[in-house]
């Protein structure tokens, strides 16, 4: 049997045209979800708050003026997260699009109770993006999202997602942490903060502080000192200046961090578990308010490294101590290091990890290398003729 070629061609054409573009979704039929707030509601329900971007239809044309779109915030409750979403979808004409969601914010009540089901949806469903950030907040997420009054809040969200220091809180990283040995990690906390803009007060989203999450539940919040101490172990957080006062005087010197690396060396000797953490820091001098001339032959750069080493290791030690004793959460990923180096021992002691971590002997070594004294050397503190 042979079908004439033209009949075959017609068949192909018909087959291609009949289904058409049935599953297409044009951009103008979409409500782009920018931020999602997840809260606990009554009767074990979930309250979902979404902030969607809907482009401004009145713009376009030559003036090119108000081209910014509008951000709408709405919330519904449902049995589960996807259920609440479908309730919302039923009511609205535009299709919700998760592909560009930038932030998932968990309300405090829900975070304390445990976020298992919500994480499951975020990891399992195909639409939520792995690059989006997960934040916690100290109130309900709904209240936080509603309080954002800046028309450009989506801009803030996009920029926030691009911030390197927040990379560890992306969905993909959180998924990795949950799957890892210790099941503890930190999540950043989102706040609304007011700024003045053209005489009006605007609330925009900021990120400040961290919370410790253990077994998908918030167990505590880090204060600033602790947070700074722990930051060293998350390699991304490099936008820091560290100041120190030399010789207990008022003369301060500040260094700007360029690069840091952490090496964790676990060891098991005679059944005693211990870990050595080596922190290596490269930095430049940002501000020198001392009398030291940093570029003369005495090589003061090497000398000022020592106080920094001491200060930093003190800071880290106290943070690690509190982790061990107060929160009992291994957010440093030590469990993983032990697993890698001692797979057999790890297998036997996996169940006991909590106890081991509590009594783990952790040593800290900081090695600061200051490379660049700055581009000019006008010492504003020194009077003429007084140079050392």
């Amino acid at each position, binding site marked *: 049997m042979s079908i004439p070629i033209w009949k075959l061609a017609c068949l192909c054409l018909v087959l*291609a045209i009949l*289904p*058409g*573009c049935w*599953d*297409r*979704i*044009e*951009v*103008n039929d*979409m409500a*782009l979800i920018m931020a999602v707030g997840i809260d606990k509601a009554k009767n074990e329900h979930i309250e979902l708050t979404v902030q969607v*971007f809907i*482009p*401004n*239809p009145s*713009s*376009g*044309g*030559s003036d090119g003026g108000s*081209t*910014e*779109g509008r951000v709408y915030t709405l919330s519904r409750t449902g049995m589960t997260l996807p259920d609440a979403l479908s309730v919302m979808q039923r009511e609205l004409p535009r299709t919700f*699009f998760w*592909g*560009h969601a*930038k932030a998932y914010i968990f309300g405090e009540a829900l975070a304390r109770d445990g976020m298992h089901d919500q994480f499951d949806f975020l990891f399992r469903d195909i639409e939520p*993006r792995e690059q989006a950030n997960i934040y916690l907040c100290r109130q309900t997420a709904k209240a936080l999202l509603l309080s954002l009054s800046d028309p450009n809040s*989506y801009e803030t969200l*996009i920029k926030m997602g691009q911030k390197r220091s927040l990379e560890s809180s992306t969905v993909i990283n959180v998924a990795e942490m949950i799957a890892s040995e210790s099941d503890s990690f930190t999540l950043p906390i989102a706040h609304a903060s007011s700024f003045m803009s053209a005489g009006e007060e605007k609330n925009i989203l900021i990120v400040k502080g961290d919370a410790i999450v253990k077994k998908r539940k918030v167990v505590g919040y880090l204060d600033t000192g602790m947070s700074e101490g722990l930051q060293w172990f998350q390699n991304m957080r490099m936008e820091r200046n560290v100041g120190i006062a030399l010789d207990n005087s008022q003369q301060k010197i500040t260094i700007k961090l360029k690069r840091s690396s952490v090496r964790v060396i676990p060891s098991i000797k005679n059944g005693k578990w211990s870990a050595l953490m080596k922190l290596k820091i490269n930095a430049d001098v940002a501000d020198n308010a001392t009398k030291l001339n940093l570029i003369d032959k005495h090589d003061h750069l090497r000398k000022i490294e020592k106080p920094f080493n001491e200060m930093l290791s003190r800071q880290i030690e106290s943070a690690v101590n509190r982790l061990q004793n107060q929160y009992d959460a291994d957010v440093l990923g030590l469990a993983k290091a032990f697993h890698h180096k001692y797979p057999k021992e790890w297998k036997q002691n996996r169940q006991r990890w909590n106890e081991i971590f509590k009594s783990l002997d952790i040593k800290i070594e900081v090695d600061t290398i200051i490379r660049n004294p700055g581009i000019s050397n006008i010492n504003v503190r020194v009077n003429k003729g007084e140079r050392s």
Partner: protein
Amino acid sequence: MNVPELEYLDNPMLEKLEQEMLSLSIKENADVLGQFFLDCADLVMHDFVVSRSRAATVFYFQGLTDTMQLEMQVIRPLTTREAESGELDSFEGVVISNKKTVESYGDAVRSILTGRSLLLIDGIKGGLSLCLTKFEARSVEEPQSESVVRGPREGFTETLSTNTSLLRRRIRSSTMKIQSFELGRYSKTIIDLIYIEGIARDEIVQQITDRLLAVDIDGILESAMVEEAIEDSTFSPFPQIQATERPDVAVAALLEGRIVILTENTPIALIAPTTLASLMQSPEDYYQRFWIGTTIRWLRYLFFFIALLAPSVYVAILTFHQEMVPTTLLLRVAQSREEIPFPALLEALIMEVIFEALREAGIRLPKQVGSAVSIVGALVIGQAAIQAGLVSAPMVMVVAITGISSFMMPQYPASIALRLLRFPIMILSGMFGIFGLMLSLLLIITHLCTLHSFGIPYLSPFSPLRPTEWKDSLIRAPIKFMKQRPGTYVGKNKMRQSVYAKTRE
């Protein structure tokens, strides 16, 4: 040939006469030729008397003959010739270098038709065909469709002899062979097959000769008709024979072992065999420094894909894969698309069709009107369309970029292929997204892989893989390093330069 000449289908008598010998009587001859050229108003029959005793006639077509020469070199010496015995039986006294005698009526008719003049003298057997051809022709001008900043400004013309002379001036070697063919039952167009013996592969020359001989058509108006008659795959959108207006391009092809086909009455020469890579080369690649040549070539490869895919990618991403664009870009596009009443696919199709129409109109219209079209066109697919809210601004950009990139192809036929293929790809990607896009790309690549030009794979040297030839396809290596001719086409003589040649002490 036993096949009846279809020319004389209505008049079997003429067909019979064609075979007959010219008679001694000039009166009879004139009668017979008069029958052949009945109602041919442009034929001139000039009677005169040779040596005051014999009747003679010249036949020629008006406007094809140098009448001045005819009078000075033929008619005057013959009329004033003293009647001496013996001399009367010959054509002596005619001082024209390019002449030949014709015996039959058929030959006589054909020689007149090619533009030569035919001289008959009463009582002398046969006639004398004189090459006094001269007609109005365009002089050698700068090629219009392939201009370069640096390089020769000469282009082929409509006159075949001028064109061969342009080539001969560039290759002063007896190994450059020219085979002549006559194609077209009525047009009797002369086709010259040019190659360099030893460099060109014999089997390719033979193949082209065979295909040319098999052509039976009533007229050849342009080399495109020759191209279509001898090309491998009629239904492919891709040109399998390169066309050029430039003698230097033709010569470069000859030196690569390719074959040039010149056609009478058209300035466009054909180059076969052709690969896709050779369609991406421009003569200027070789006239600029090799860094520039290479960069421009890469740019061209890049824009090859942009010309083919840009609107399709835009449509596919906007209708199916919104997550693939950076958020800020998507928000921008979403804002501009908010008011557009059409789906992205329709929008793209409309704009592309309008663009093609404008381009076509711009080419066809007389120059005076052309500027009006471009002004109106710029409004239609530009600012006005956006302001009217019918088309989004990013779409205009995509269409414009696509248009510009299709102009980047150095070979016009190649860019037409891209312009054409864009539409099915666009429709497929509008229906199936990136999947449809990949599907259509696969189809095109499969097609290109099966395509051959006179036995040479079209995708060579990429498939089949010949990495040594990437020197002149992927990059434009310095000429010093291209010591071998491309092995894709070349015959026995493979080396371009001596391997041991030292460039400098």
